[in-house]
C-alpha cells in the first residue's frame, strides 16, 4: 500500500467515524449520569430521518440538525421519565424505544426514500488543510467532522476538569451521597440524559446529511448498537470512546478499500464485516480475563495498564434513585 493510499484510508476512517463520535459522546454523558439510554439505534434512525426531512423541506442543513437534536432529546426525555420518575427498568424502556423509533422512521420516512436532499458542504480549513498528511486526514473535510473534535474535547474537559462534570459523575457514581451534599440528582440526571439524547440525534443527521447522505429503509440500522458497545469499550471516557469510534471507522474504511481489491468476496460480506470485527475486538478487550491478565503484569506496567484499561462502570449506572 502506498503512503498516498494509506492517508486516504485514514481520512476516510475519520470521516466515517464522525456520526458515531457524536453518538458515543452522547451516550457516555448519559451513562456517566447513571442512566442507560438503550434506544440509541432507533433514535439515530428516527432523528436521522427527521433531520433529513426537515433539511429537505426548508433547504437548510441547520434546521435539519436542529430537528434531529430535538427528536433525540424527546426520545431521551421518555427514557428519563420512565427510568427516573417512574423507576421502571431502563433496559426495557430503552429497548422498546429502540424498536419503536426504528419502525416509526420506516413508517414516517417512506416519502423520503431515495429522494435528493441538501448535504453538509465540504470545508477544508485554509492553511491547515495544506499541511502534509495531517492536513489531508484531519482538516480537509467538513464542519461536522471539526465539530466532532470539539465535542470530544469539550466532553472530556467538562467531565474531568470542571465542577459541573464533577457533579455529573457524582450523580452517576454515588447518587445518594451527591444528594446529601446538595446536588440535585433528579434534575441533573434528566438534564444529561436529554443532552446526551440530543447528541445521539445529531449523530443521526450526521449520517443522513453528511456521511451516508439521503434516506432509505433502516438506513443506519446497527450503528446505534455498535455505539452502545463502544461506550463500554471506551470505559465511559470520551477520549477512549472516540478512539473506539475511530477504530470502527477504520474497519469500515478498510472494508470499502478491500472491496475493490479483493476479488471473489461479495460486497455484502464487506458490509457486515466491520460490525463483526468490531464485536470481536470488543470481546477481546473487555471482560474479566483482561483484568486477571493485568494483575499478572510487572508492577510498573500493571499500574500503567490498569489506569488505562480498567474502567469500571459508574457505580450507580442503571439503578433507580430513591430520594426519600
Amino acid at each position, binding site marked *: 500500500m502506498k503512503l498516498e493510499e494509506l492517508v486516504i484510508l485514514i481520512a476516510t476512517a475519520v470521516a466515517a467515524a464522525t456520526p458515531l463520535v457524536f453518538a458515543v459522546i452522547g451516550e457516555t454523558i448519559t451513562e456517566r449520569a447513571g442512566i442507560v439510554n438503550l434506544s440509541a439505534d432507533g433514535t439515530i434512525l428516527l432523528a436521522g430521518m427527521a433531520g433529513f426531512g426537515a433539511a429537505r423541506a426548508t433547504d437548510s442543513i441547520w434546521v435539519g440538525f436542529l430537528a434531529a437534536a430535538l427528536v433525540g432529546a424527546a426520545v431521551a426525555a421518555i427514557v428519563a421519565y*420512565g427510568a427516573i420518575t417512574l423507576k421502571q427498568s431502563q*433496559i426495557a424502556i430503552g429497548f*422498546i424505544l429502540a424498536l419503536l423509533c426504528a*419502525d416509526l422512521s420506516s413508517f414516517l420516512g417512506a416519502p423520503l426514500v431515495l429522494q435528493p436532499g441538501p448535504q453538509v458542504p465540504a470545508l477544508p480549513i485554509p492553511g491547515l488543510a495544506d499541511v502534509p498528511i495531517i492536513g489531508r486526514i484531519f482538516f480537509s473535510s467538513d464542519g461536522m467532522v471539526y465539530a466532532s473534535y470539539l465535542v470530544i474535547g469539550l466532553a472530556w474537559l467538562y467531565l474531568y476538569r470542571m465542577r459541573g462534570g464533577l457533579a455529573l459523575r457524582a450523580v452517576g457514581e454515588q447518587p445518594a451521597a451527591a444528594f446529601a451534599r446538595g446536588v440535585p440528582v433528579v434534575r441533573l440526571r434528566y438534564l444529561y440524559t436529554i443532552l446526551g439524547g440530543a447528541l445521539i440525534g445529531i449523530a443521526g443527521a450526521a449520517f443522513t446529511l453528511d456521511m451516508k447522505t439521503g434516506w432509505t429503509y433502516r438506513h443506519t440500522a446497527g450503528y446505534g448498537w455498535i455505539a452502545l458497545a463502544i461506550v*463500554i469499550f471506551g470505559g465511559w471516557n470520551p477520549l477512549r470512546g472516540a478512539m473506539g469510534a475511530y477504530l470502527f471507522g477504520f474497519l469500515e474504511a478498510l472494508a470499502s478499500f478491500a472491496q475493490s481489491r479483493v476479488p471473489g468476496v461479495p460486497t455484502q*460480506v464487506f458490509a457486515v464485516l466491520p460490525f463483526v470485527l468490531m*464485536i470481536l475486538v470488543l470481546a477481546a478487550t*473487555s*471482560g474479566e480475563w483482561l483484568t486477571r491478565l493485568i494483575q499478572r503484569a510487572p508492577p510498573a506496567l500493571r499500574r500503567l495498564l490498569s489506569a488505562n484499561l480498567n474502567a469500571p462502570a459508574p457505580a450507580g449506572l442503571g439503578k433507580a434513585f430513591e430520594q426519600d
Partner: protein
Amino acid sequence: MATPASAKTPSPGAAYRVGAIVVGLIFIAGLVLLTGHSPIDVLVAMVKAAFGTEDQFARVLATLVPLTLCACGLIFTFNAGLYNLGVEGQMIIGGIAATLALRLLQDSAPGPVAMAVAILAGIAGGVVWALLAGALNVFGRISEIFAGLGLNFVAQGLAVYLIFGPWKRPGVASMSGTAPFPETLWLPTIGKTEASPVALIAGLVVLVFTVIVMRNTYFGLRLRAVGLNPRSSTVQGIPATRYLLSAFALSGAMAGLAGGLQVLAIFHRLIPNISSNLGFLSLLIVMLGNFNALFVLPLAFFFSALNVGSLTLPIQFQLESALAGVIQGVLVLAALIGRGLSQQARARARAAAVRKG
C-alpha cells in the same frame, strides 16, 4: 387524589394503566391521520388482511409459531433476571444449523429423517449460541445484553457470508438466499397455506412445557429466586451459575428451533433475514405480558395478526407495513408507563394512609 379513586376501583392505579393505553391508541390514530388515511379504514383493512381468507389466517398461525417459541424461551431468561437480546442471533444460528444438516443429508437420507436431524441441529445451534452469551456473562462478566447483541452481529455476518460465499446458489448469489431445497425436504402444510402442523404442534408442546415448568416445578421456583437475587440464592444453596446457564440454554434451544422451523416450513432455504426481527418482537411480547408464560399465546397471536394484517398496507394505502411495529412498540411502551404511573399512585396512596393513621 388517589383515595376516592381507590374506593371505586380495586387498585388505585388501574385508571393509569387504562389511560396510558388509551393515550397510546390516540397517538397511533394521530399518526395514521397524519398520512391522510382514516384510522378506522386502516384498522378494518388490517383485520380483514389477517383473518379474511384461510391463507391469511394460516399465515397468522405460521408467524405465531416462531413468536411463541422465542417468547417461551425468553420467559426463562427474563425470570432468571436476564435480558437475552441475543435471541435474534440464536434464531439465525438455528436456521444456519438446520440448513447445514439438510445440505449434508439431502442426497443420502430420506426426507423425514433429514428434516428431523435438521430440527435437532437447529435446536443445538441455538443452544451453543446462547451458551456462548451465557459463558461471556457468567464467567467473563460481560453484560448479557451486549454479549447477545454482539453475537447477533456475528450470526448475521455468518449468514451473509454463507449465502454469498460457500452456499451461494448456482449462478448468481443474492439477498434472496440459498437455492431452495427440493419439496421432499419441506415440512407438510395445511392445504396450500403456509401453516405447518408440525411447527404448530412444536410451538404448543413448548408452550405447555414452559407453563408447567414455570408454575409447577422447583426448577421454575428456584429460577425466579435466582432472578430476584443471584447472590442470596447462592447463599441459600441454589447453584446460581447452573440456573443462569440453564436459562440461556433453554432460551437458545427454543430460538434455535424457531430458526430451524423457519427454514423447514416457511422459506425452504436460508435467507439473510431468516429471523425477520421476530426474536426482538418476542422480547416485546414477554415484557408486555409481564414475564408471565400464560400471556404468551394471546399476545403472540395478537402481534402475529398485526404483522400479517400490516402486509396489506403498502398495497391498499401505499403505507409502510412498519405500522405494525409502531403499534406494537407504542402499546408496550404505554403498558410500561401505565404500570409505572399506577405503582406511583399506589405508593402515594400508601404514604397518605400512613400519614393519616
